[in-house]
């Protein structure tokens, strides 16, 4: 099974500061992978690098097509949806407009309308608030909206940056259940960056641990979860 996403020798820079050093990893089609590590380790930078939101050298291939040199919006159009840190909600627009924006690059009006209904099935609370200004939603609701918006793209790969941030544990559990469902039913490959390692490892098939811009550990989620040394040194529990 070929990799959907292939990252080789990836370096990323913020100005003169190098944030990622020779990163290398794959994402298998249909898998859920989690990228773990402490604050500032380079997890967010990795996601941003995939979408060309930060200066990089190295090779990133998505389904065989190289991503270097493409603008962020063109990378998205290839089928990569990115739910950024802080959700990036269009706060001044309604919930439904946010969903429509997720599908703005699609041409099939009928399909878009059908997908919006599906999102409302996944996330009933969004249906309740469909005409409300997105900025007035709670943190958890905005997170669900962000995920739904990403799904409106009908992406092949979904990148999530700390979806659990600032959310109550029960809500996070619900969210991760839905993510699992989406992965299985819609065959969406998922890469989720998390500080909350425990929950992420329950959801994921594979895991990578990143520290100061380098991958220091990789394996199946079970291996990583059961490895006490790794947990204590890198994941803090």
């Amino acid at each position, binding site marked *: 099974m070929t990799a959907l996403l292939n990252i080789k020798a990836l370096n990323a820079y913020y100005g003169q500061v190098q944030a990622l050093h020779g990163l290398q990893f794959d994402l298998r089609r249909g898998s859920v992978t989690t990228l773990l590590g402490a604050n500032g380790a380079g997890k967010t930078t990795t996601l941003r690098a995939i979408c060309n939101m930060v200066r990089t050298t190295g090779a990133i291939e998505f389904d065989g097509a190289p991503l270097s040199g493409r603008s962020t919006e063109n990378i998205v159009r290839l089928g990569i949806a990115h739910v950024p840190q802080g959700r990036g909600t269009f*706060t*001044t627009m309604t919930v439904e407009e946010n969903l429509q924006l997720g599908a703005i690059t699609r041409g099939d009006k009928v399909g878009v309308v059908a997908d919006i209904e599906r999102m409302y099935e996944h996330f009933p609370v969004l249906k309740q608030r469909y005409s409300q*200004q997105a*900025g*007035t939603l709670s943190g958890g609701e905005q997170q669900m909206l962000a995920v739904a918006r990403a799904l409106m793209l009908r992406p092949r790969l979904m990148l999530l940056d700390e979806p659990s941030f600032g959310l109550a544990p029960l809500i996070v559990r619900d969210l991760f259940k839905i993510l699992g469902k989406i992965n299985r039913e819609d065959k969406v490959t998922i890469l989720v960056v998390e500080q909350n390692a425990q929950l992420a490892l329950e959801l994921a098939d594979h895991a990578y641990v990143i520290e100061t811009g380098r991958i220091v550990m990789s394996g199946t989620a079970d291996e990583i979860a059961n490895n006490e040394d790794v947990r204590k040194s890198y994941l803090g529990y």
Partner: protein
Amino acid sequence: MSAVQEAVTDAPAVEAVPKRALTLGTGTSLTVLAALILAPLFVKNFIIFQMTMLLVYGLAVLALNILTGGSGQFSLGQSAFYAVGAYTSAILMEHAGMNYALTLPIAGLICFIFGFLFGLPALRLSGVYLALATFALATAMPQLLKLGYVEHWTGGVQGLVVTKPDAPFGLPMSQDMWLYYFTLVITIAIYVFSVNLLRSRSGRAFMAIRDNEIAASAMGVDVALYKTLAFGVSAGITGVAGGLGAIAVQFVAPDGYTIALAIQLFVGMVIGGVGWLPGSIVGSAFIIFVPNIAEGISKGLSYAVFGVILFLVIFLVPHGARQVALIAQHLLGKLKKS
């Protein structure tokens, strides 16, 4: 329509200049100083007059740099303070017979108060809104100066003629040369004062406000005090510049202080490098000499040529003279290594 729009305070509208880079290095400063001191000895009186105006506008741009580059407040109204300073000096000299040198601190003080008072209502405004308010001030000033009520003092539309002073103690130099050195001393004093102000606690307060007003306030900076103080100081220095300008040009008239002047000072600040005090004189040189050059190139299209030159400069060095200085420093560093 009553819903709230959220804005994350991301990049500040005015970017910071690192404190180290606030001034030129010692070597460069001394060279520039030497040039400024020696140049008048070799040129004609008219050029000396132009050099005086160079310093005068340099002061005005410096003042704007403190306000915008320092405390992050936009102002398109500096021409109003310049005008008040100019008229204060003129009125004191011609109606009260005061010595020209004494009029300057008074002009500065009056403008400081004026600026401080203007800063009070301006506290609630920022960005585009503050720009509009200062713009209003600048457009109002020439009209206020023409008002019938004050015509006795201001001379109405025709303005006032100002007597140029002779060199004191019978020194053997022309009026222009004396006035130049007098202006130079004041300019250096104000420059040193400004650099120290920006390096002091007050300066840090200004810059904290510029970079993130909410955070500054949360840290205990008295935002209201420092914002109005910045306006006051900036207006005061501009007032002194106005006074010097009035003496150098030998007259004051309402239409000499229109919004066009305010816009020129703004352009001067951008060309010099926002917040970089030494750049003020480069900005001043731009606004004095480039229009002349433009007119030389094409009389009918002089304004357009000015615009084209301005575009070229901001394309090549969007951060103004400071960027040029940094590049030069970089190159010199490379030369030294090899």
